[in-house]
């Protein structure tokens, strides 16, 4: 368990050979999971990762009981069999018994997990090391002490196994890259083009089961579930293409391993848990700061549109007041309040004054010639649209202002021209006001 080993929390002790092996094992595991996870996330079957990593337990138990030894070969076979069986059961329940797909997943994996626990409790003699807690948390901290000889070097057994599974995943996905890609994005098309999406589905599920089992001992099921989902989901926020997405997910997986190891060692806590937390943290950063799909950039985009709308509303309002011919001009506070007030309105007004569309003398706002020209185009868009709505859609007069007010900001020169033609060069809007040239 985590605390059999006491790691001194100084920086030089962080990067000893054992520590490096732990990071390497975690990174290999994470990468193996992230690689197959990309396809789960894209096919919106992320929770199959969760389901399978629990459902393989009875397969493990049966293999363990039958072979009587803790040997990777039988365990793999048992896990793949259990994984494929649960995939089959989930689909069959959904298709033939019409259980909703989420419920069928939940029923199958919890049922199989319960069966696994009972089998382990009943079938495995006490004293044999098969700890269910290990299935959860893994024993990453202990991996450097169980080594095998590989090509003349002593490497941790867990590393050899997980690196092998990573290579296996990479080889199969690389060989069937095109097929997996198509079935990830359009399974129906893949089937019509002659490679069975359901065959690929079972192959993928077999890979997930193998990966889950290979990773169990080292990192525990919770990290497997996390690594199947979190790095691919993070990469999906950062990229719109499959190849970069796979690469980024591998990088995120490695970064999570390193980060989690450092934090876990410094804080002296469970490493697998800390790596999961690190990965979740990276996902959180991507949610906030991803350039295209992040929350911050989306907010910035929304803000810039809102700001433009407020500024254009201000300009159009000043124009309309000029148009009335009265000598009265709006004060800054009045104008701000009229477009909704608040900091956005003040910011918009400030911007207009700075760019020279509006002059502010004392408490009086006036359009400059440049501002008047811009405002004229807006008012023209507004009134053309109102006319169009009345003429071609037959909306009543009191229903056209609101939609025109919304859409005026998004009508460009070309569309104005088109509207003008559609309306046979009308020069009065439905309220009888002139449409400015």
């Amino acid at each position, binding site marked *: 368990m985590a605390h059999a080993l006491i790691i001194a929390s100084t920086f030089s002790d962080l990067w000893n050979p054992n520590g490096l092996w732990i990071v390497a094992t975690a990174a290999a595991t994470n990468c193996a999971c992230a690689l197959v996870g990309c396809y789960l996330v894209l096919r919106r079957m992320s929770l199959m990762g*969760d389901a399978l990593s629990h459902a393989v337990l009875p397969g493990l138990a049966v293999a363990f009981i039958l072979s009587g030894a803790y040997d990777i070969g039988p365990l793999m076979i048992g896990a793949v069999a259990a994984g494929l069986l649960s995939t089959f059961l989930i689909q069959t329940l959904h298709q033939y018994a019409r259980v909703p797909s989420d419920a069928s997943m939940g029923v199958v994996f919890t049922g199989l997990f319960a069966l696994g626990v009972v089998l382990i409790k009943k079938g495995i003699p006490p004293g044999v090391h098969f700890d269910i807690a290990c299935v959860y948390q893994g024993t990453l901290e202990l991996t450097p002490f169980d080594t095998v000889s590989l090509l003349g070097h002593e490497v941790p057994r867990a590393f050899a196994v997980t690196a092998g599974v990573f290579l296996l995943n990479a080889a199969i996905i690389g060989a069937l890259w095109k097929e997996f890609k198509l079935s990830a994005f359009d399974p129906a098309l893949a089937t019509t083009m002659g490679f069975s999406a359901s065959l690929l589905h079972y192959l993928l599920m077999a890979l997930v089961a193998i990966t889950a089992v290979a990773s169990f001992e080292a990192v525990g099921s919770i990290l497997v579930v996390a690594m199947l989902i979190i790095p691919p989901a993070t990469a999906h926020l950062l990229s719109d293409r499959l190849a970069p997405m796979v690469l980024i997910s591998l990088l995120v997986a490695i970064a999570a391993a390193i980060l989690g190891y450092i934090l876990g060692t410094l804080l002296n806590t469970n490493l697998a848990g800390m790596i*999961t937390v690190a990965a979740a943290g990276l996902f959180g950063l991507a949610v906030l700061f991803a350039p295209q799909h992040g929350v911050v950039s989306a907010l910035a985009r929304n803000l810039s549109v809102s700001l433009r709308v407020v500024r254009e509303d201000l300009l159009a309002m000043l124009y309309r007041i000029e148009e009335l011919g009265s000598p009265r001009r709006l004060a800054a506070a009045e104008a701000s309040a009229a477009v909704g007030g608040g900091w956005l309105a003040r910011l918009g007004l400030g911007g207009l004054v700075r760019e020279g569309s509006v002059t502010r003398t004392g408490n009086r706002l006036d359009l400059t010639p440049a501002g008047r020209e811009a405002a004229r185009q807006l008012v023209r868009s507004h009134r053309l649209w109102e006319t169009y709505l009345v003429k071609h859609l037959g909306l009543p007069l009191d229903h056209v202002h609101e939609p025109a007010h919304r859409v005026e900001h998004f009508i460009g020169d070309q569309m104005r021209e088109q509207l003008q033609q559609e309306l046979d060069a009308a020069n009065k809007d439905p309220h009888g006001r002139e449409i400015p040239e």
Partner: protein
Amino acid sequence: MTGLSLSDKVTIGSALLGGAAGVAGSFAVLRRRSLVGDMLAHASLPGVCIAYAITGSRELLGLSIGALVSGLIAIGLMTLVVRWTRTKEDAAIGIMLSGFFGLGIVLLSVITRSAAAGGSAGLSSYIFGEPGNMLDSDLLTLAAVGAGVLLLVVCFYKEFKLVSFDHEFAKSQGWPTLWLDLGMMAAVALVTIIGLPIVGVILMAAMIILPGATARMWTNRFNVLLILAGIIGATTGAVGVRLSSSLPTGPTVVLTGATIFVASILFAPERGVIARVWSETRLRIRVAREHLLRSLYELNEPTLPRLTPTSFQTLLSHRYATPWMLRWLVDRSEHRGLVTLRGDQITLTPLGFRRAAEATRTHRMWEIYMMEFAGSAPDHVDRSADAVEHLLPESLLVELEDRLAREGRLPAIATEVPASPHEVNTEGNTS
């Protein structure tokens, strides 16, 4: 306080939990949110640890409040991620589930290290479940939660029903679907968190899903569904605990529920697999019988109205079927008095002739219809008529007859069979 033995208390407690989980879980199943229970269960761990660190005791109430808070934070974050980013709901559930649980394991390892040995032993029961030490106060909490869930359901019965079955309609009718959804999920969250120390993190998801999914097999009615789910859940809990003398309790309870579920899948009337396979088989047999009769009619057609015997071999070459299937069909038809079988020779009885004429008539009417009104090519109609003729409702046939009769396309006597609109192949296979 109650004077019950421990095993009775555990049984009653599990039954209460199962009943409450069944009722609340029905909403999750109907709203396709079954795995939210799984997420909640995992996401509660950090809250449990923090609550333990703050209160220093492992009393159910304190830990449950911690669990509820961290579960609600997870649901909130999940909703925000789904709403604000392109990450889909399944991935968001998985991320919250594993991220929170990872955090929980980190906190647990910190607590285990700092606490005196044995002090935090109760916390790991949150992962694996440990019903053995049910206290009177736990029983009361469970009863209160069960009553609370029932009260919620009774108060919002109509609203929950609408939202469960037709969310979009409820929305369009102006119901506050967001709040109703949250209310249902809150019931699920409450039951999940109370149940955690009894059945454990993973198996709690099963307690939420199994009764609702089982009850759904038996009924299409909401009120029956809720009552059934409650009964099934309570039975699962009680029976599972009683069965688990030498087995781990949580898994045994879940396996009991899974057994009831599998039995329902198989034996439920209407929705059950056996009932569906049975009715499908009966349909298939009827279709095959009608095809057999039509083949006999077509083979007899040249010599009508005299009915001549047809040899088994001719029949076999006329219509594709495996010999034993055909033999069985002929036997069944003889049993029903539709044909007489003498040696290898099959002859239609008058009753059989009548049925055969009906089947042929339906077939050809549909063929004519397909050619006349749907513009199908003559060599395409035989097959499509084959597939559809058995399911045509009689009213449609009458309408078709009327239509053809008006156009003078039907033989003078309405009960006679019209001539085939295409060449009838009497030698080889026609279908």
